[in-house]
């Protein structure tokens, strides 16, 4: 594969069989390895799409700084795009984000503003929204930007249809809703009976914080009509499955990928046959400091539960 520059190397990720992890021989499990993108996560797709759309529309001009609230991956992806295209970048990041995420943002030249850990991603969104009132900032805002699901409709979803026309199920993590909305819509156009399943993390009490139930946040781009099921996954189940990916299939993926695998197996157990695509959102590099792969599972899950793994 040849590209003019690093941004041309985004997408077209491998779809590999992970049959050893299927609970039933007649149900085929497939993993789409988004960790193969340049910054190691599927967020490269939406970063390129959102910035290039803003350049076309004139919203993003060279004098403006890109600003984004993020639990890490989107900020890192935007920082790469910003560096490559010559923009300044400011990431608003909850202050329990892993050390690796901070280092990667710095490596690509982004500046960082911290938001309180106990308010999670919702807290980062609040801080970013206040900053964005200053017109010197341009905020792509992944949670509300149609270029996010579009990147997954035109990229992720189309690639799955091309590589696995017989796909019956898509399982992906629910963060902004962009992946499930975009790729799910593309798959359902291909085959209306495709089942789209969201895996949702059960976060630690610290992350849920003492948030009022009235100030929740549903990403505007999430089209809930595309979803057929949504399953909650504990940190322990996610870590256990993340370890199995490495141990039995040699796939080094992030913790949310374990949550997706756990969910896919639960779905597979209820099927006679099928082709289930697991979207593995990122590689494992950014989680090495959590010791997710080593030592006591309970302790690892506990540790992961207190950090931002989504």
């Amino acid at each position, binding site marked *: 594969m040849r590209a003019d520059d690093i941004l041309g190397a985004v997408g077209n990720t491998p779809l590999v069989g992970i049959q050893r992890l299927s609970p039933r021989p007649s149900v085929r499990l497939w993993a789409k390895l988004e960790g193969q993108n340049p910054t190691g996560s599927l967020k490269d797709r939406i970063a390129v799409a959102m910035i290039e759309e803003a350049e076309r529309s004139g919203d993003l001009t060279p004098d403006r700084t890109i600003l984004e609230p993020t639990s890490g991956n989107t900020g890192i992806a935007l920082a790469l795009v910003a560096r490559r295209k010559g923009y300044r970048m400011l990431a608003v990041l909850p202050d329990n984000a892993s050390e690796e995420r901070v280092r990667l943002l710095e490596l690509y030249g982004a500046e960082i503003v911290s938001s309180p850990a106990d308010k*999670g991603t919702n807290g980062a969104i609040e801080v970013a929204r206040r900053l964005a009132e200053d017109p010197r900032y341009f905020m792509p805002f992944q949670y509300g930007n149609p270029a996010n699901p579009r990147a997954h409709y035109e990229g992720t979803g189309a690639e799955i249809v091309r590589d696995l026309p017989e796909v019956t199920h898509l399982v992906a993590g629910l963060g902004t809703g962009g992946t499930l909305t975009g790729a799910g819509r593309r798959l359902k156009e291909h085959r209306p009976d495709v089942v789209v399943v969201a895996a949702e993390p059960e976060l630690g009490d610290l992350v849920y914080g003492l948030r009022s139930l009235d100030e929740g946040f549903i990403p505007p781009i999430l089209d809930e009509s595309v979803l057929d099921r949504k399953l909650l996954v504990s940190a322990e189940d996610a870590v256990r499955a993340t370890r199995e990916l490495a141990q039995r299939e040699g796939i080094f993926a992030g913790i949310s990928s374990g949550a997706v695998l756990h969910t896919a197996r639960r779905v597979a157990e209820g099927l006679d046959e099928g082709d289930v695509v697991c979207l593995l959102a990122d590689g494992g590099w950014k989680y090495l400091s959590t010791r997710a792969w080593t030592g006591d599972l309970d302790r690892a899950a506990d540790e992961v539960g207190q950090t931002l793994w989504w």
Partner: protein
Amino acid sequence: MPVRVKVPSVLRTHTGGEGQVDGDGTTVREVLEDLETRYPGIRARLVTGDGALHRFVNVYVNDEDVRYLGSLETEVGDGDVVSILPAVAGG
């Protein structure tokens, strides 16, 4: 049907600090009504005046989001786990 109910930290003022309580009913709606008899005020935090689930509240039966099952009419069985969580975003 006796079920276990997991209560988020934000609602534990109603349950005397307990993170898990017992509930009873054949549907999620009945379980929440049962909780209300022992933990007054909790139901209004979860269900709107029109009787629908509050927009920013997610309820799960055995980890499956009830919005994609039968919402508040989702059936529960003996020993099921009902989890209540605030909606949060990732990314």
